[in-house]
């Protein structure tokens, strides 16, 4: 059931786990891999990311 999609009033919702061991629905999030395949893009290399982000700081969030 988790990972299935339902359409309500013309919008796509995905069945996802909630934080209490149950399930809920939320607006679908199209995986990046699917979008890359459609657009001919791909994640940049780690080297490119580090080259561009060497001076960019982290903080205490995600």
């Amino acid at each position, binding site marked *: 059931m988790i990972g299935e999609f339902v359409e309500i009033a013309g919008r796509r919702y995905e069945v996802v786990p909630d934080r209490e061991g149950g399930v809920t629905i939320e607006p679908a999030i*199209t995986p990046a891999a699917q979008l890359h395949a459609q657009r*001919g*893009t791909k994640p940049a290399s*780690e080297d*490119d*990311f580090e080259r*561009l982000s060497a001076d*960019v700081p982290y903080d205490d969030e*995600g």
Partner: protein
Amino acid sequence: MPDSPAGGGLPPVSIEFGSVEWREEVERYDRRSPARAQAQSARKTIETGTAKLDWKRCKADGPDATKLPGCRKLYIPLGRQGASGAPYGFVFQLIQKPDDSLAWNMIAFGERHPANERTRNVYERAHKRLHGHYL
């Protein structure tokens, strides 16, 4: 509006808002919601290049076990930092386009610290977009 890497010698990197991601991340909010208004305002500012962007790196291993390698973030409203002053965030993934150019592509928008514990934060949403599932 491209992002100009520090240090010089590196070509500017464009900042992109894909239509699918925008619909799923921003337009899920009601048209009159503060979140949607803040996202639209920030996008306009980013695209017109009228503000210095205070980028931060996302963590490959985040505090909630989110894994966001190759990603950066901007807090919204732009120019503010604290969770109360900037309650929302955009997460961008560095991508390589078919012509080999690089771009920062928005992959998630949402609350940094949702008051409702059932609400997924922006990092969890970004993780799900990258990995296809929540933790």
